[in-house]
């Protein structure tokens, strides 16, 4: 994360953060980037199918005639102890997990980016205050934030998202601030300042486009983490209450039946792992694509 290196090659210089054209192509050319794009696309489509009720069966449709049936053409992930189709449940679960992950990332991303840009671009005092606050938040592990906030706010999709998102704000602040600091001293921003551009124009036209890559990488990784964190909370019974079933809830429910019907555990577990791998790959690919040093190497 924040390894301090004295090697000048590792210091971010203004030249490193200039705009990179063709990053989409670079993303597709990197192995992990392509895998990430494909997996994430499939995951998002599955989630949308769950959200729009395009599942083969009703996710909560109980059927006494199909209790704990194994994998078949009719039920490609088997059925659970109430005869519900696991695949339909998984689709719905992916939808819920993605909704929370996206909301979480929006909260952490917007607050964190604003904080990071302010700390890097505005005055000394603003920066000092924001960085002290960030340090204090870093002193508390993100998980503790989630648990404490869930205790205070209660459990709903928005509450859970806030609970997970707050813990990730300080990471965004640090990740965004570093390149903003470098950009502020870069020649083109200085030139803009000399020409009398307003702060708003400098920020929106010159700073933000150049940190888009950094933000994209962080967003992808945060989505992966948010899915994991949400699964953890739901698994512990601290996620959104039923009937909202996320993947973590499904794993928890499956723990009772997995001994006799492994597929009830396999479906939701696989969905979590695949989704997280997808966003992690996408993050790695974006990093390679956005970083000219790894691209030329």
């Amino acid at each position, binding site marked *: 994360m924040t390894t301090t290196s004295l090697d000048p090659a590792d210091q971010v210089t203004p030249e490193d953060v200039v705009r990179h054209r063709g990053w989409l192509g670079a993303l597709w050319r990197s192995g992990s980037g392509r895998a990430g794009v494909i997996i994430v696309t499939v995951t998002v489509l599955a989630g949308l199918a769950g959200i729009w009720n395009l599942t083969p069966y009703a996710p909560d449709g109980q059927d006494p005639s199909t209790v704990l049936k194994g994998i078949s053409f009719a039920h490609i992930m088997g059925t659970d102890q109430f005869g519900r189709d696991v695949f339909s449940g998984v689709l719905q679960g992916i939808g819920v997990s993605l909704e929370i992950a996206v909301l979480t990332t929006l909260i952490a991303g917007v607050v964190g980016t604003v904080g990071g840009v302010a700390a890097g671009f505005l005055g000394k005092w603003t920066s000092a205050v924001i960085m002290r606050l960030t340090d204090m938040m870093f*002193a508390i592990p993100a998980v503790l934030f989630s648990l404490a906030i869930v205790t*205070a706010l209660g459990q709903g999709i928005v509450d859970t998202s806030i609970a997970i998102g707050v813990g990730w704000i300080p990471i965004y602040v640090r990740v965004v601030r570093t390149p903003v600091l470098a950009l502020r001293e870069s020649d083109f921003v200085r030139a803009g300042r000399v020409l009398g551009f307003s702060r708003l124009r400098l920020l929106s036209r010159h700073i933000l486009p150049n940190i888009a890559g950094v933000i994209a990488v962080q967003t992808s990784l945060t989505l992966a983490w948010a899915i994991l964190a949400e699964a953890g909370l739901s*698994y512990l019974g*601290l996620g959104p209450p039923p009937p909202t079933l996320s993947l973590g809830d499904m794993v928890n429910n499956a723990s009772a039946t997995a001994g006799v019907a492994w597929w009830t555990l396999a479906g939701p577990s696989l969905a979590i*792992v695949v989704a997280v791998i997808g966003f992690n790959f996408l993050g790695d690919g974006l990093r390679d694509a956005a970083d000219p040093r790894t691209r030329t190497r």
Partner: protein
Amino acid sequence: MNLLQTIARRVFSILITLFGASVIVFVILRVLPGNAVTASLGTSEGLLTKAQVAALDQYYGVGQPALQQYFSWLHAVLSGNLGVSLTYRQPVSYMLGNTLPITLELSFFAIVLGIVIGAGLGLWSGLHPGRWPDALGQSVSVLGLSVPALVIGEVLVTWFSRQFHYFPSSANSVGFFTDPWVNFQQIIFPAFVLSLGIAAAILRTTRGAVLEVTNLNFARTALGKGVNRRSFVWRHIFLNSLTAVVTMSGIQLGYLLGGTVIVENIYVLNGMGRLMITSILNKDFPVVQSITLVFAAGFVIVNMLVDVLNAVIDPRIRKRGA
């Protein structure tokens, strides 16, 4: 002298951070939820007389200004009084004394396993970039970062119960001093499950550090003048990558806390994480507050130890005065 200065400076900044952390914990858990007393009483609240409510309020400090509440809480915490659990009617400090050793033991085994697996595989794959040990390391790290403890834990429990008829003990946890062997059996599986995520992160960092050090001039010189392989790997490469490993291990402690909560629930270990979840579900604020504080303090202290350890390992960090 320099080392002492570093430590003194760190201790000071730790006190500031802990103060900040306690404020955050207080704000989230005391100010936001409104009246914890009525929440704990539930439906029986309506049966109390006004005098009884007032007495309870005074006992828990409800109705005082927030600042006064904070300082009386801080005063109580500093003098060792963590309050009384609303559900178990026991002193929180007593409950922590029962659960903390289990969590500490679990964390200890997990971090040791994580460092051994992670640093070992990381060193191995960093020394053979692009070859099969590297591919192995990369896949382990991707899986370790993407497969959450709850999935590994559930899958292992299911597999073991089907294949070997082994079930996580639902009996009470056996203390280390009562029966070390039974205690070890109870701890080692959860610790292994916990260690994989840690190992993955440490593996990545170690590999990166090893690759970096291998390309530095002194390492190439050492190889060129024919230093024997073993001393090259251990003295030139590993020692110079060690600060990265130590730093990452400290960072992973935050992850570890979340992991213990999950793993203690899967393996029914009566540690602090499990107590925290039941307390959250019961809205038992004094317990949640105290555990949060203990976890935060532990995290901060370990990160200070990491800084000190790095200063001991690397003279350059000492000179900069961190």
